[in-house]
């Protein structure tokens, strides 16, 4: 068995979400250094504000302003901050019940060490220098300096109206993975490096899968027997692509086809070149064209053989 192939795989996307009235007011408020909560019918104040009462499910509308000071209700010392977390140096995760609120907000607390943190500690918001209308407008919490730790009063009603409210939140997200192809696809990729195209045969129904995925979806058994297919094959169906894909260097129009390689039990797909688009047809015989060190054929071109009869590939459409 060849060494396991691996490839980095980065999944990265900016999620764009509309906020609705409650979260729009909350996040716009943070931009303006105002912390808003919401009052439930039974008088509890929720921070962050919820759109619905988590107990009764009622719509909530009564925004209130709370203080930017509060009390730690639980904490956890994080000695090794990870990417994206609020602080790059060791910090405490905290749940903070702001003065005037009945629920706690999750955030980071900047403290010199775990000895300086305890449940019940009085803390205050440290605002980010640059604020956009996001939970990260609170840079973190910090301990209240001695003499400034008296609790503030109850929450007061607030209309939630600010100039130029934030209505959309865009949050980037990036996750890093290592892709590994598995046994069957690994063998296929290893053969491709030698410019051979291989499939695997189902021991039960004898169908040859190209590329192989390790199992026959009809028989639910593992495939194992290596079968070299092609290199020539038959176009079973095709389309003409007229829209340029992003970052793709191939000029449009071009032909994208399903190609049943000789000996394969199903068609794979590839680009057809070396023939005008309007002359590509079902039954056209083609062969792969390899360029450089690529692990896959760059495209397929006509072999010049007579077209394959329909009956020879009709089961592979």
């Amino acid at each position, binding site marked *: 068995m060849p060494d*396991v192939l*691996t490839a980095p*795989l980065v999944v990265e996307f900016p*999620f764009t*979400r509309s*906020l609705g009235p409650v979260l729009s007011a*909350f*996040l716009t408020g943070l931009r303006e250094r105002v912390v808003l909560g919401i009052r439930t019918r039974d008088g509890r104040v*929720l*921070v*962050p504000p*919820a759109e619905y009462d*988590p107990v009764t499910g009622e719509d909530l509308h009564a925004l209130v302003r709370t203080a930017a000071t509060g009390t730690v*209700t*639980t*904490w*956890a*010392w*994080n*000695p090794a901050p*990870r*990417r*994206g*977390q609020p602080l790059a140096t060791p910090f405490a*995760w*905290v*749940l903070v019940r702001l003065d005037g609120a009945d*629920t*706690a*907000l*999750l*955030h*980071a607390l900047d403290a010199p060490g*775990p000895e300086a943190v305890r*449940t019940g500690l009085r803390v205050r918001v440290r605002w980010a220098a640059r604020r956009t209308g996001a*939970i*990260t407008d609170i840079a973190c919490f910090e301990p209240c300096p001695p003499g400034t730790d008296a609790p503030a009063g109850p929450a007061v009603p607030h209309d939630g109206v600010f100039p130029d409210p934030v209505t959309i*939140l865009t*949050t980037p*997200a990036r*996750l*890093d*993975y*290592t*892709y*590994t*192809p*598995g*046994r069957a*696809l*690994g063998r296929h990729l290893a053969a491709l490096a030698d410019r051979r195209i291989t499939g695997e045969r189902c021991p039960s129904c004898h169908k040859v899968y190209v590329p192989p*995925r*390790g*199992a026959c*979806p*009809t*028989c*639910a*058994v*593992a495939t194992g027997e290596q079968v070299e297919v092609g290199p020539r094959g038959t176009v079973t169906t095709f389309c003409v692509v007229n829209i340029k894909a992003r970052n793709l260097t191939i000029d449009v129009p071009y032909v994208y086809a399903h190609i049943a390689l000789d000996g394969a039990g199903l068609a794979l797909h590839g680009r057809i070149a070396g023939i005008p688009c309007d002359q590509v047809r079902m039954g056209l015989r083609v062969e792969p064209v390899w360029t450089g060190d690529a692990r896959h054929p760059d495209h397929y071109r006509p072999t010049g053989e007579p077209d394959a009869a329909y009956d020879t590939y009709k089961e592979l459409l």
Partner: protein
Amino acid sequence: MTRPGRPGPPGAREIAIVAFAQTRHRRATPELSEPEMLLPVLREALDQAGLRPGEAGFTCSGSSDYLAGRPFSFTMALDTVGAWPPVAESHVEMDGAWALYEAWVKLLTGEADTALVYAHGTSSSGELRDVLTRQLDPYCTAPLWPDPVALAALQAQALIDAGETDEAALARIAVRSRAAAATNPYAQLRGPVPAGDYVVRPLRTGDCPPVGDGAAAVVLAAGDDARRRCARPAWIRGMDHRAEPHALGVRDLTDSVSTRLAAERAGAFDAPADTAELHAPFTSQEVVLRKALRLADGVAVNPSGGPLAANPVMAAGLIRLGEAAARIHRGESGRALAHATSGPCLQQNLVAVLEGPEREERP
């Protein structure tokens, strides 16, 4: 037939777990694709139940594309179940315990007599602590990237502050779990593991589950079909799942209201159980669950070693149901609770009550 005093809807069919199989869970499985990891497990479970591939009346799976970063990877996994020609099939982007719940409901309706349930996860493909932040509230929580260890540590500190546990007691849970796993050939951590340094204080490496890859499969069958397929079917006497608010600061982290409610509705408190398989990935969460499920001291908790010994995400909850059922299959338990969880700090919880044939009331 329904029996007086039994939980469940009137006239409900009797449904049992008749087979269970799992991988030998490992830190990483780079040589296997997800279908290649699943195939032997499915075959083992189907063989136990005497079913051919594609023969189950319903198939339901649980997995998350985020774990390996492969969109629609669950459709690739269908290669392993004989899904062509098409079979009746469904998928949940949840732990496989919830796939089992869906399959149980399907069998209760009478639309199928057997079901194959499976789950898999390859946490090794990514950074699990980062990946799991993406399940959180996207407005006020996920932008801070709080990882599952951090959130569990907040819960653990709340328990310590409330006087419900301390670090020494948590360490004992870790030791007991890994000692129990010594006889479990499928576990990833078998035997003593040092308490280690703080990952996020107060949780140390020993308080945290191993990160690893794995898969599991269960077969459900109804009534006499179940009796034919298994000498000692593990009858599902009740099952329920409940969720709590996503905002951590709204919840009392020292309690699990949702577990207690699910347990009540599943009939967990109607009679004492001898075994409980708890999906508590962190030692501190076992403290919460023991209280919510009112477990007496004599109950065997996580005799398999539990998720502290092997925690293949998306399969670990299904494995709790499978391990509890397997204890009944082997005659080691007469009545067992199985619990599965999802979300941060035990946000969502499923409880099932399983019983062996000696608990069947004779007419």
